[in-house]
């Protein structure tokens, strides 16, 4: 086990996979950084420090610094994949799916199906998502509910450095297109990371980060840690929480959710994306359809309100799910009847 930051788990996994497979290539805006400047290549090395040193190690053919052209980045990644490469495209901010969605949704996601299963499209699209930096409405969003709704894509949102390592390695080796969502507020999180080149985590297998029999709390990404804090607090009161880290929203580990709710009968789903047509609503519907008889209280969703993300500190704090809001929802289902 090595102690490592979330961002370093991203970088080291990319470097290891590039070393292992010469077909793995990286492209995106400023993935080299400093091209065409007095500072020269790698003067920056990616704004998230998730590509630092790759250019020097693997060269310009495999680390392709692109102009600010998100559609062309994703389209080029799709073309590289159809031609036999395994591209990792960095979209910088998840919010930029807006300018590249056709290439994600109508192209990359659909090639395999539209072409009758005769091709694979092994593209990884990495992007930083999430609020907490007062970056306002166009640089703070959680977009997994949009992308999870698109058949053909797999969607991954790790909540720890260890999961970054295992899930990103699976993503790079996967032959289908994978959206890899990295939470900005987790980049500096430190944690134990399993060693070895074969530590992979299969998609569609949730992680039980806390175990208990009284209530089920479901989340992933940054808010998973908030849920764990609530569970730890309630544990001191003798209340046991199952905390389920989904890890991937597509595929979704339905069995882990249903198995837990059948024991607890009480569930809170916590999500950073807007509420309408979202992941929390989707999971509540799943539970209603498959575990209705086990329910002791109505499933509760904790999400932001249906608004764009505000800028001011007070407003962003009020917007986001918090430990207090999650705790209140958990106590609400515990106190039902």
């Amino acid at each position, binding site marked *: 086990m090595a102690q490592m930051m979330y961002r370093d788990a991203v970088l080291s996994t990319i470097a290891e996979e590039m070393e292992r497979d010469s077909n793995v290539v990286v492209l995106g805006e400023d993935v080299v950084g400093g091209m065409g400047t007095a500072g020269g290549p790698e003067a920056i090395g990616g704004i998230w420090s998730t590509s630092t040193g790759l250019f020097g190690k693997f060269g310009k053919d495999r680390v392709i610094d692109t102009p600010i052209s998100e559609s062309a980045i994703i389209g080029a990644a799709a073309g590289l994949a159809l031609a036999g490469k395994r591209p990792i495209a960095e979209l910088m901010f998840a919010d930029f799916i807006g300018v590249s969605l056709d290439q994600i949704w109508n192209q990359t996601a659909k090639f395999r199906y539209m072409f*009758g299963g005769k091709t694979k499209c092994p593209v990884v699209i990495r992007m930083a998502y999430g609020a907490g930096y007062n970056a306002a409405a166009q640089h703070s969003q959680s977009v997994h509910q949009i992308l999870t709704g698109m058949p053909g894509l797999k969607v991954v949102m790790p909540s720890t450095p260890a999961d970054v390592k295992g899930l990103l390695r699976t993503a790079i080796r996967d032959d289908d297109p994978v959206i890899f969502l990295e939470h900005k507020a987790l980049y500096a999180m430190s944690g134990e990371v399993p060693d070895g080149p074969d530590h992979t985590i299969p998609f569609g297998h949730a992680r039980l980060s806390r175990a208990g029999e009284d209530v089920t709390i479901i989340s992933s990404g940054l808010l998973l840690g908030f849920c764990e804090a609530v569970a730890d607090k309630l544990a001191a009161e003798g209340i046991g929480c199952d905390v389920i880290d989904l890890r991937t929203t597509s595929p979704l580990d339905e069995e882990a959710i249903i198995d837990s709710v059948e024991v607890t009968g009480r569930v809170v789903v916590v999500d950073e994306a807007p509420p309408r047509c979202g992941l929390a609503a989707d999971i509540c519907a799943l539970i209603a359809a498959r575990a209705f008889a086990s329910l002791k209280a109505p499933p509760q969703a904790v999400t932001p309100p249906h608004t764009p993300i505000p800028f001011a500190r007070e407003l962003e704090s009020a917007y986001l799910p918090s430990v207090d809001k999650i705790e209140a929802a958990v106590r609400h289902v515990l106190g039902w009847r």
Partner: protein
Amino acid sequence: MQLSREALQRAYRQMKVIREFEERLHLEIQTGEIAGFTHLYCGQEAVAVGVCEHLGSEDKIVSTHRGHGHCLAKGCELNGMMAEIWGSREGLCKGKGGSMHIADIDKGMLGANGIVGAGAPIAVGAALSARIDGKGPDGFKVAIAFSGDGACNQGTTFEAMNMAVVTQAPCIFVFENNHYSEHTGVDYAVGTAKDIASRAEAFGMKVWRADGTDFFAVHDTMREVLAFVRAGGGPAAVEFDTERFFGHFEGDPQRYRGKGEIDRIRETRDCLKNFRASVTGAKLLTDADLDQIDRQVLASIDAAVVAARAADRPTPEDVLADVYIAY
């Protein structure tokens, strides 16, 4: 460069296959037997064939919604295409794609595309792959983005052209100016005085222009373009002036056409007629040679339609197949 008798026969046959494929679809669609939207390539055959006759299977092309010609010219199998358009599970895409999504990756045909302008970035990616693979004995493999005068107005096309120049990808942007983006004239929709090549030039590319209804002009131009790009000269663009004999889609009433326009272009701008006049005039091939090809092609189209009609239909279970490799 003078082409061999065999090369001339092959080029004519390829163009004739596309022509008769499309003419037959035009008739069959009117019976209601074929589902969905179909966009015919008739009139532009010299471009697809004049370009693709220079390519090998490791060279890639990315096509458009008007893609049948590019597919056939790049080597997609006739019966598989017809079966796909009929929606059969024996089609090239097992009936999942249809006319607008025919692809054959093994042949280097990376897909027709229902989204205007979506193909150019994908071609840049395929060209970057060729750049990574490096030069072979004949230089770089190339990727070709076929686009129309409609797609030349899409931001994706601009992004792709700039990225190709910045990354020096061996990509060729082939613009087929058929004077209509859907139902709107090029005089209105293309701001650079109908001139598409100048846009590519402004992005820093070497460009060529030629008559897209003249197979020999296309073929000769592409020989130069490919020599430049394969040698590592960077991306390039070509604008071919061509004609679309049918509407934007089948069923288009074409009220935007001028009086007698279609008769005129069919009379004076038909690449097959012009090819025949040229090669028989120069005594390279005889009318009898070409008539024989015509008969063979018509028979092959008949056979493809018969086979497509008889081919297996997909089943409801097929809906769920091939969304993911593993999920």
